[in-house]
């Protein structure tokens, strides 16, 4: 039981770390994509 518990703590550590690393990379990826592919603002009509 103790062996399993210690192994589970290891999985917890690397699991939480892993999930933040992957989500962090996805976050950076989304921010980069947002900056590259910005929505085009409609051109303002020139005042007559």
């Amino acid at each position, binding site marked *: 039981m103790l062996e399993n518990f210690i192994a*589970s703590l290891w999985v917890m550590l690397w*699991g939480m770390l892993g999930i933040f690393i992957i*989500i962090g990379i996805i976050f950076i990826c989304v921010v980069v994509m947002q900056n590259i*592919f910005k*929505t085009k603002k409609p051109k303002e009509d020139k005042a007559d």
Partner: protein
Amino acid sequence: MGSLFANFSNITWQQIVMWIIGGVLIWLAIKKDMEPTLLLPIGFGAILCNLPANTFIGEGPLGTLFKAGISNELFPLLLFIGIGAMIDFGPLLSNPKLLLFGAAAQFGIFFTLSMATLMGFSLTDAASISIIGAADGPTSIVVADFFGSKYFGAITVAAYSYMALVPIIQPPVIKLITTKKERLIRMDYEGHEVSQTVKILFPIAISVIAGLFAPQSAPLVGFLMFGNLIRECGVLRGLSDTAQSVLANLVTILLGLTIAVRMEASEFLQIQTLMILALGLVAFVFDTIGGVMFAKLLNLFSKKKINPMIGAAGISAFPMSSRVVHKMALKEDPTNFLLMQAAGVNVGGQIASVIAGGLIMTLVH
């Protein structure tokens, strides 16, 4: 005449208990509207599979469906296409930092893993049980099946039952760990417009990233994101509609009925089933705590304060969890609208829970 009643002597009390459990699941589905699409077929299947001398399991129709669709993880993955086609990642893409709350709210999975090992479960069974905290039925099925857990039936029933109980489980936990002042924090919605190119590239990028870091999550993430891609590409409206309705409904019928194959009395009626139900609750409670505490942690360093309640929406139960947070915020202050922020966190939780499932399979395997 005797042969007409011969099968009656094969009835065991355990089977009768399983009929009652099946009946309760059907009652919860119909009367309490608790995940009816899954709990009703599961309940009926539980009754069928516990008829004495039945021919449904083994080489029978349900046994064949189990081998064809669940033991190779096909049904849950097909269901993921439908779920992916239903998800609008817009609120998340317009405010991508909400993704981080989804990651934090997976804490309950890993905490439950440790608790389950302390209760005497093997590491693989503990991993299968912990994934109830993903609040995502198909992920629970895939992970429990991957580890060949003998508690497959109990895990699935617990996963779907607690998903339906999110509006009951989360509010007291959130109240317990937040102050009224924190619950009153107002958040301006910082949503930016998202271009269609980003919406198309997003599912592709996530599939590649998840596949590289956690290969076991590739099928889960890949099918989910494929569903989302056909939704967002703009040229496959028919396929998207079919995935969202026909495919999802069809697979749900087969999945629900087939899960019951693993609900035979001999497998289900064990003290461990009660322990799994208790651990499932622990998983949901600590998911909520993880998300809320992460928001509180960010508030220590951030000028713009975050309402910590949105952290609780980082579980995969969509849209129940975001609605819970939204309603709680409105209860504290009728002019404080957190729905868009909570919805963003909630879809982030859907991505994070699938990745967490893949990580559990990668790390424990």
